[in-house]
């Protein structure tokens, strides 16, 4: 059993009670809601005649269904309009702060909470969205919950939960040029598989991680869930503190110094005990890309699509399904595979540094003939900051579309979708069948820089070619 890890400390601090079934009633420090998984929770609350117990600990935004071209209300899609209107009504009725469209703070829930300084070390963070693991980058216990649990948190600010085991993932060495945080996490999931993290929290640590910016750390923790781990976290340090300094909801004045003291005490102790430990060498990681229908089906850009014989027996059936669905042949190279659509955005890679990395590739070049390429900033703030740096112009000149913030084609609940069996090069996090809006659409996951490179050449390309 783990002890003295950040996970243990934050868990202990938030235990409200032991429940009769042996589970723990855990206090939720920050509850984030959005339009997709909250309406049924509010309805259930209403049916039971319950109130929101701590409205000030719940923060709302709208992200999944927002159109990225024309955001004028009412939306063209009446279902989307109804969802936002319902969220607006619920927030108003229950006194919940909503960062709505045009407020300057709207965006993907996992992008706005960190940038507003809502997410702080030592908190427990819950949201009806599996990528809540993102917030672990700040040294929180952050996890996705279902709608029934959203209802529970609204009603009690608590959740019934069992403690997870803790696995330490230690990284040494620096990433080489052209290799990004996204490649690192795709590499981890490829090596450990999509089920390895079930029952675990992942602590990402070591020199590689310490060198990472907060945005890179968020990319890593974001995809912990794709490796099966409901939450992933990184110990808070100077990088964390300087990110948080001056954010809208960050501690101010004399609280700031005290906050840092406390935050520093949260990191896993030198002699912390983990349930499991795995080491990686970041220097061995190359630009990584998925070829199949689970985030674990990844390969280095210079590798071939694996043959069934080269795979563990356990992985063969899903590989066979992937060859068929993706219309890809085992043993063939992934490089130079022609693509149709390029998507840069999502809570994995829709932050300023992601857009900068992509713009560096796009600058002075042109999107290949016939390719649809578009950039969707993760939030209104990301859009503003990118525009201030002229990135929108770089993209537009290169032939990308510059859109309004939201989840967009990460899951295609809005009008941005693949058509037929189009292949997309995508900076998002899931390549499941049909994920990007077409039942036979195909998704290849990669870093934003790799997506930009693919947009320029019209095919899967080693981004390092552009850096020579």
């Amino acid at each position, binding site marked *: 059993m783990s002890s003295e890890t950040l996970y243990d400390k934050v868990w202990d*601090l*938030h235990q*409200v*009670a032991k*429940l*009769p*079934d*042996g*589970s723990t009633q855990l*206090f939720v*420090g920050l509850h984030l809601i959005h339009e997709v*998984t909250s*309406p049924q929770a509010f309805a259930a609350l209403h049916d*039971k005649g*319950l109130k929101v*117990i701590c409205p000030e600990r719940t923060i709302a935004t709208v992200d999944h269904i927002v159109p990225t071209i024309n955001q004028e209300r009412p939306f063209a899609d009446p279902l*989307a309009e109804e*969802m936002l209107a319902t969220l607006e009504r619920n927030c108003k009725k229950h006194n919940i702060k909503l960062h709505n469209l045009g407020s300057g703070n709207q965006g993907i829930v996992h992008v706005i909470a960190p940038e507003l300084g809502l997410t*702080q070390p*030592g908190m427990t963070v819950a949201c*009806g*969205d*599996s990528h*809540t693991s993102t917030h672990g980058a700040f040294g929180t216990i952050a996890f*996705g*919950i*279902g*709608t*029934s*649990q959203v*209802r*529970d948190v609204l*009603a*009690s600010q*608590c959740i*019934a939960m*069992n403690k997870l085991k803790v696995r330490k993932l230690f990284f040494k060495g620096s990433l080489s040029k052209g290799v990004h945080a996204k490649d690192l996490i795709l590499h981890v999931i490829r090596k450990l598989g999509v*089920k390895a993290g*079930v*029952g675990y929290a992942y602590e990402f640590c070591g020199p590689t991680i310490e060198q990472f910016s907060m945005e890179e750390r968020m990319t890593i923790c974001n995809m912990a869930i794709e490796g*099966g781990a*409901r939450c992933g976290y990184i110990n808070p340090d100077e990088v964390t503190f300087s990110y948080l300094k001056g954010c809208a909801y960050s*501690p101010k004045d004399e*609280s700031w110094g005290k*906050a840092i*003291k*406390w935050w520093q005490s949260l990191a896993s102790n030198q002699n912390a005990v983990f349930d499991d430990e795995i080491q990686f060498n970041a220097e061995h990681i190359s630009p990584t890309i998925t070829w199949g229908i*689970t985030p674990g089906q990844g390969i280095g850009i210079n590798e071939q699509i694996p043959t069934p014989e080269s795979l563990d027996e356990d992985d063969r*059936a*899903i590989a066979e*399904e992937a060859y068929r669905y993706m219309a890809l042949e085992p043993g063939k190279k992934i490089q130079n595979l022609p693509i149709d659509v390029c998507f840069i955005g999502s809570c994995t890679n829709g932050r300023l540094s992601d857009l900068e990395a992509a713009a560096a590739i796009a600058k002075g070049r042109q999107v290949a003939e016939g390719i649809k390429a578009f950039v969707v900033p993760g939030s209104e703030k990301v859009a503003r900051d990118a525009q201030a740096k002229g990135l929108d112009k770089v993209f537009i000149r290169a032939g990308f579309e510059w859109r309004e913030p939201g989840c967009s084609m990460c*899951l*295609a*609940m809005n009008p941005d979708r693949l058509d037929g069996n189009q292949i997309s090069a995508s900076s998002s996090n*899931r390549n*499941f*069948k*049909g*994920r990007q809006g077409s*039942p036979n659409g195909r998704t290849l996951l990669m870093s934003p820089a790799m997506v930009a490179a693919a947009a320029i050449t019209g095919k899967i390309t080693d981004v390092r070619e552009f850096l020579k």
Partner: protein
Amino acid sequence: MAKNSPFPKGPISQIQGRCLILTGDDIDTDRIIPARFLRCVSFKLLGDQVFADDRKELKGSHPFDLKSNQGASILIVNKNFGCGSSREHAPQALMRWGIRAIIGQSFAEIFYGNCLAIGIPCLTTESSKINAIAEEIKKTTEECWLLNINKKTFSRSNKKWQLSIDQRSLDMLTSGRWDATSQLISNCSNLKSFMINLPYLNNFSK
């Protein structure tokens, strides 16, 4: 039809019904309920939309469309069922189609919790047993099976298999406390004093 049998309520100690087999590892929630159907403010219509894209692709031969499977209430799956997003729409869609229990080799964590929260027991067993169970079911899909949660058994006339479920889930289901809200609220009388002890809620002064 199972579709018409009432939604889970109160203690759940056994489920009786016909079975439906869905083969494959890593069946994710995007497949169980594609994202476009999440554009709704209620779960009501999800039952017809479960596995919409897979079913369309198979043009009537998907297990959820086969005539012989209509009315089935126990779903047999393989490994890592329900991986991916946290959408409760997935178990809701299954439940509204008529599923009342799932037996599989393993389940994704959030999906498992979501099932429990709406009263759908998920029991596990090793792959060889899943295969044996599937073989037995295939012999006659008309037969009714009994899933006994207390005893963790799955049986029909002279056939019986032992399954697993963790004690916590078992207690919750059989006591009827799988709907956690009231329990949580009853412990909230001292929430304010609990909160004041959290550094980030007291200006880091304690």
